[in-house]
């Protein structure tokens, strides 16, 4: 028998000591993991255990200036299935086919997909959702949700825009004011095991959604409705391709109405508003057709403004002092610029006339003469100064920019055509904004729809403000322009817009669209009232009218009709 010697004992103790040190080291490591790094790992673990389902926040409403709701929400349901919880797949498939009207193939595919949650359909009517819930099938989730609802369907469709399946704005004010309207989605958090089965004993925690804010606009539902009727009437009478009407406050840029017929139904934005046969279209063609339908021609499309642009030439000429009201002109029916003979619309000529009469006659040679007196350099300077080279900054997406000659490419002929509104393109909103700035005393305004943001109880969250720029023209020039344009309506080419007892300023225009060989026209009229202190400025644009196409004949009466009806309603006199 061997003795258990002292050195054996000593060494055993040494080994024990080493082990104890190691265990202490591990305890230290545990302290690090469980105290210092605890938050990090807890959070990671929690992310792993939690499944979240969104609770949709109610989207803010879009209101008109009187608080009428233009875009609202209605309760709908989202139907989903949770694969791991389904106990009777055949019953679930049959139910989905019956209640949602989807094909059995699709239902089967969704039900049999191994995923934590599979969404079957969104925007299901609440009544259908309630019925599905009443089946009480395991693994079928019915989540309450909101769907956008537009009570006036077509009204201002190209201004308001609509939302997609996830209630996010797609076009129009809906997308421009997405941040204001969307709110913050809430969450239902449930804890699950590794297979995704919810642990009911731990319950669920909710993060309540925050409703989106309401957007109050300057639109007036009644004015918009009336303007839409007027637009539809003239579109039908003239078999026009479309009619756009914009009514705005030239003093501050607030837009009261923007009609672009044909409008489309905001509650059904994927049905074309034309009689086109969609069954033959490829997906891409159909998408293009939809995009075309959703466009707002007042803002997204440019056109040659024609004679309404003489207002800009007039303002530039008066500002520069190259012409005054009493200057005498003579119109033989054409004007020769370099080697070109540019005709007046009246081939026989207007004869002798002063500048005011030239404007009343919408005489091309008079304005060509003013343009040539300014010269290309100076004309271009005013073009820029009036803000025509920049976008207006309207609060709708996709505003089109001005299509203009390069400064160095403007020769005498180009200058002559620019002077009466041809050979370049701007948007109707640009024209309305620029004329507003000239007739309101020289203040460039930003046209806009959004006025203020409120919460659902009507408390003010934010008053929206827009840029203005003073000194576009002098107040004297502004007054002279108003005087001339009043004459145009009361005694000149715009007399079809005149209303007895009211002072209206305005200008007609008839422009040909490119290519000129097709003989397609755009007739327009721009008017404002009262002439001395404009409170409402409107522009009527009729695209491709059949038969008589003169702006003074077909567009001016539309504005007159609208003014006659809305001015008393708005309480504007004079």
């Amino acid at each position: 028998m061997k003795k258990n010697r002292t050195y054996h004992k000593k060494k055993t103790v040494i080994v024990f000591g080493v082990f104890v040190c190691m265990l202490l080291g591990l305890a230290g490591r545990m302290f690090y993991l469980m105290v210092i790094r605890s938050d990090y790992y807890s959070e990671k673990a929690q992310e792993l255990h939690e499944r979240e389902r969104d609770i949709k926040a109610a989207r803010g409403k879009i209101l008109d200036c009187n608080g009428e709701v233009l875009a609202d929400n209605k309760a709908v349901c989202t139907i989903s299935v949770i694969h791991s919880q389904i106990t009777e797949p055949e019953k679930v498939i049959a139910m989905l086919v019956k209640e949602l009207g989807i094909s059995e193939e699709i239902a089967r595919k969704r039900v049999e997909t191994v995923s934590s949650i599979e969404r079957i359909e969104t925007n299901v009517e609440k009544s259908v959702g309630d019925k599905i819930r009443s089946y009480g099938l395991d693994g079928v989730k019915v989540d309450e949700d909101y769907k956008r609802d537009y009570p006036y369907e077509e009204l201002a469709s190209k201004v308001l825009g609509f939302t997609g399946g996830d209630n996010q704005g797609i076009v129009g004010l809906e997308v421009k004011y997405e941040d204001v309207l969307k709110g913050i989605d809430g969450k239902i958090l449930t804890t699950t095991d590794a297979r995704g089965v919810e642990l009911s004993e731990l319950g669920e925690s909710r993060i309540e959604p925050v409703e989106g804010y309401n957007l109050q606009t300057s639109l007036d539902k009644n004015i918009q409705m009336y303007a839409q009727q007027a637009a539809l009437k003239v579109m039908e009478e003239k078999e026009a391709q479309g009619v756009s009407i914009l009514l705005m406050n030239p003093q501050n840029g607030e837009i009261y109405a923007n009609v672009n017929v044909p409008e489309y139904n905001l509650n059904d934005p994927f049905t074309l508003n034309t009689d086109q046969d969609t069954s033959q279209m490829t997906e891409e063609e159909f998408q293009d057709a939809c995009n075309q339908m959703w466009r707002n021609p007042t803002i997204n499309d440019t056109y040659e403004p024609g004679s309404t642009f003489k207002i800009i030439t007039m303002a530039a000429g008066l500002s520069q002092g190259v012409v005054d009201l009493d200057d005498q002109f003579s119109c033989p029916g054409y004007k020769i610029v370099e080697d070109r003979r540019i005709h007046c619309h009246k081939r026989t000529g207007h004869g002798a006339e002063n500048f005011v009469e030239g404007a009343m006659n919408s005489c091309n040679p008079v304005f060509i003469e003013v343009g040539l007196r300014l010269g290309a350099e100076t004309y271009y300077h005013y073009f820029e100064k009036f803000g025509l080279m920049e976008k207006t900054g309207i609060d709708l997406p996709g505003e089109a920019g001005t299509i203009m000659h390069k400064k160095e490419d403007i020769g005498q002929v180009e200058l002559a055509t620019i002077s009466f509104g041809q050979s370049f393109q701007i948007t109707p909103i640009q024209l309305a904004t620029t004329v507003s700035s000239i007739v309101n005393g020289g203040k460039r305004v930003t046209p806009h729809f959004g006025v203020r943001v409120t919460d659902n109880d009507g408390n003010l969250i934010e008053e929206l403000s827009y840029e203005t720029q003073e000194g576009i023209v002098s107040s004297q020039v502004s007054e002279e322009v108003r005087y001339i344009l009043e004459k145009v309506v009361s005694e000149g080419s715009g007399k079809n817009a005149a209303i007895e007892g009211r002072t209206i300023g305005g200008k007609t225009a008839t422009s040909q669209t490119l290519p000129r060989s097709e003989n397609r026209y755009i007739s327009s009229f721009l008017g404002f009232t009262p002439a001395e202190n404009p409170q409402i400025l409107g522009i009527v644009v009729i695209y491709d009218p059949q038969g008589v196409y003169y702006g003074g004949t077909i567009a001016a009466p539309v504005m007159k009709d609208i003014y006659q009806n809305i001015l008393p309603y708005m309480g504007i006199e004079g």
Partner: protein
Amino acid sequence: MESRKKKEKTADGLLIFLVLLLVVCGLIFLYSTSAYNGRVKFHDSAYYFKKQLFATSLGLMGMYLVSFMDYNFLVKMAPFLYGVSLLLSLAVLLFGDEYNGSKRWLSLGPLSFQPSEFAKVAVILLLAWVITKGKEENRGILYMAGRMAILLPIVGLVGTNNLSTAVIILGIGVILIFVSNPRYLPFVGIGGVGVVFIGIFLGMASYRLERLAIWRNPEAYEKGFQTIQGLYAIGSGGIFGKGLGSSLQKLGFVPEAQNDMIFSIICEETGLAGGCLVILVFGLLIWRLMVTATHAQDLCGSLLAAGIMAHMAIQVILNIAVVTNTIPNTGITLPFISYGGTSVLFLLGEMGIALSVSRRRKD
């Protein structure tokens, strides 16, 4: 002659208490951890618990019987037992059941048996036999290397499928030879050679280097999944834990939570406090084994107790080190607590040997 008189002494009560405490706590933790897996896989929450309870009962009986045996008799049997363990390990290689990619089990009807657990006991007995047989004078480096060489067959056989157990066997061997030898310096050399060998070993196979990379940054690798899930469990325990039974990570997130990673669930449920208590109990157990070794009446008993202490300590330290990602992942169970019938059976058997040594202690 001395030993006959000292036979009347009672076994180390504190050691018995600590073993029973660990066994009972182990069963509670095992039930808590395995209930979900049992329910999901076998529709019986107590599936793992029942099997473990059976093995534990058997083991406690074994421990009781062994504690009354003369350990010298067991040591005399060592060559035979070692031979049996070699045969069994060979049998596993040939007819073993594969589970989770490694062949470690022999099946006998409804019972399955893990020979590598038996091998560890056999090695402790064998080394005690070899060392006590040799002359005390010639214990040079070569002599020691010769003793270690005896272990090579079993290390090779076990190591084929179960590298971590082979490492434990080598560790026990080195510690026993260290204890039996009066010198210190050669062991510094052995340590140095060991480090070099580990370096070469790791460099030889790229998958081992990958393991190192996973160890350093487990979140970046798919194979770091188990490690990361263990860390999530430990970290989310905090200081006092979520409460017994409240672990979420055991719900399928930590794979096979009742096996190697059980300590992470203990940490999640009982926190830093519980985890440290478990370490403390193991520490006390190792301390009692150390006391048993130093108070043994002869070298043989001392070596047995020291070997058992080394086995226990190495396994606890490696397991906790793996679970806390202190070292790269390797499969080592936590004594008495991890699920595994063979393991608990032979561990309790070893405790019986230790108790037997303590009954014949010198004061």
